[in-house]
């Protein structure tokens, strides 16, 4: 029967607030954990491009579209889909702007049961992490949730 051990050393640190001060800026701490994670929940599915456009096809008129794409650590492509805004004095209300025409009103809520983020190694032969355990990398206690339909930006 398959059995896997879960490494929860991190969770212990997080839950006992025993993490080294990384100089987290107060405003970042509102939505993110001290390890920098947060959850954004929106209704339905995000319809994103599945790949970044090729550099060769770049033209000046598509500059706006191309500007949405970034590369992380020289490996992963990512696309910008919106912008989040909140007032640091009243962080319960969060707005998510999608493109230039839609906005979503949401809120920052405390979770009833905190969520552990499990990092599960993908089993592949010849991979280095074959003996690596599943790890709890963070515990998230709040999330930004957008329950309403999108509103137009006037």
């Amino acid at each position, binding site marked *: 029967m398959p059995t896997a051990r879960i490494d929860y050393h991190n969770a*212990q640190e997080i839950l006992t607030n025993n993490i080294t001060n990384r100089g987290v800026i107060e405003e970042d701490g509102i939505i993110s954990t001290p390890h*920098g994670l*947060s959850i954004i929940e929106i209704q*339905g599915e*995000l319809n994103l491009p599945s790949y970044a456009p090729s550099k060769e096809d770049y033209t000046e008129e598509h500059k706006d579209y191309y*500007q949405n794409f*970034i590369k992380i650590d*020289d490996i992963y492509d990512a696309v910008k889909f919106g912008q989040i805004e909140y007032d640091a004095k009243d962080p319960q209300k969060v707005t998510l702007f999608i493109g230039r025409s839609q906005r979503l009103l949401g809120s920052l809520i405390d979770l009833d049961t905190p969520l552990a983020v*499990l990092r599960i190694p993908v089993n592949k032969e010849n991979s280095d992490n074959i003996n690596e355990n599943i790890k709890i990398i963070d515990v998230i206690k709040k999330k930004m949730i957008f329950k309403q339909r999108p509103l137009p930006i006037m």
Partner: protein
Amino acid sequence: MVQYSVFQQISNDPQYTYKLMQLPPELLTYLKNDNTDNELVLKSTINSDQVVICSDSKTWRLRQMNHSNTALICDNMNINLNHKITDPLIPGLEGEKINSFENQLIGFNSSSYEYELTPIAGKIEIENLPRYSGDKLSDDTLNVGTVNWTLAEILENSLISKHEFFAQWYELGGCIVDDYAYILTNEYITEILYLLITILISEEFNYKDDKANIDSIEKSVINQNHTINRSILETIIHKFGDDISSTTFKLNNSKIAQWFGIQTLSRTSSNLINPKDFLLQWKSSLPSFYNVSLDMHDLRGNYCCPIKDRILYVDQIGLSSNLSIRFVQLFQLDKSWNYDDFIPFIKDFVPHGKKVDSIILKYAKKKKLTKDKFLVVPR
């Protein structure tokens, strides 16, 4: 106003996947506890139809709770500064770190479910384990198709936490013989228990109050019966003892009396027996000079009374674990049950958070006999 640009990764890390799991309060407390010996283990059955998470003393069932929303796990670039972000597509800006003045949240995982944990009672799978009765010849014939597992292997293969495991292991009559795990047969348990009590009484031990020394009793027991070993004796002591330390124990007399009662009752098999005759048989099954109070009520859940003044043995193993079938089976044995006799048959199967009475009303009827006496009858 605080502003963040929100990105979502469109190519994912091939080495890892990320999942969200709810942490119930008890598990949170466990995780907070700074004890390096503590473990958190994910276990599943061979066909993966059930997955559990075990702490040292608790078991939770893992259920995938799907939702129709998209939950993005985002990394805040102001906190995790070691990521390199570049804008590779715009000529002249390749490799440049862009918008470094901007706050960025980068979603690295999107999920449409989270794992929900529900506390459950762990269970040891003993079906495939060999039985041990001290008689090698009969054991070999009976133990066809069983597996030889060590204790550690059974723990690994059962959906149960460590502490729950040992509590249940003794209760099930599990023991170790020649490094492998066996389940003691009921007859053998009765035999050892009989021997143990007889030896204790012969040593003028006050079985109602005194504590017995395990090491000295081990010598006497093994002297009398060479098929018994330390592990078997420990199982018997844990199953029928109270106040157990590493060296001493007390006898749990009501549990012992109940054990002898059920074994005596099971020997009557499908014969109807007068309760008075049965009490005599029960009394004579106990070791000599072992005087404990016997009460039919202690055997509830093992018999029914289909005819006035006659009882019939009911083997719970033969009853279905599906409540609606179980009710039908019970009413086949007896059309009208005394409420108190009926409850022990179903109380372990009542779903968490439900009352026994509401289950009875769902599958049967409750009939009032006198002020505080009820019958359970079919609808």
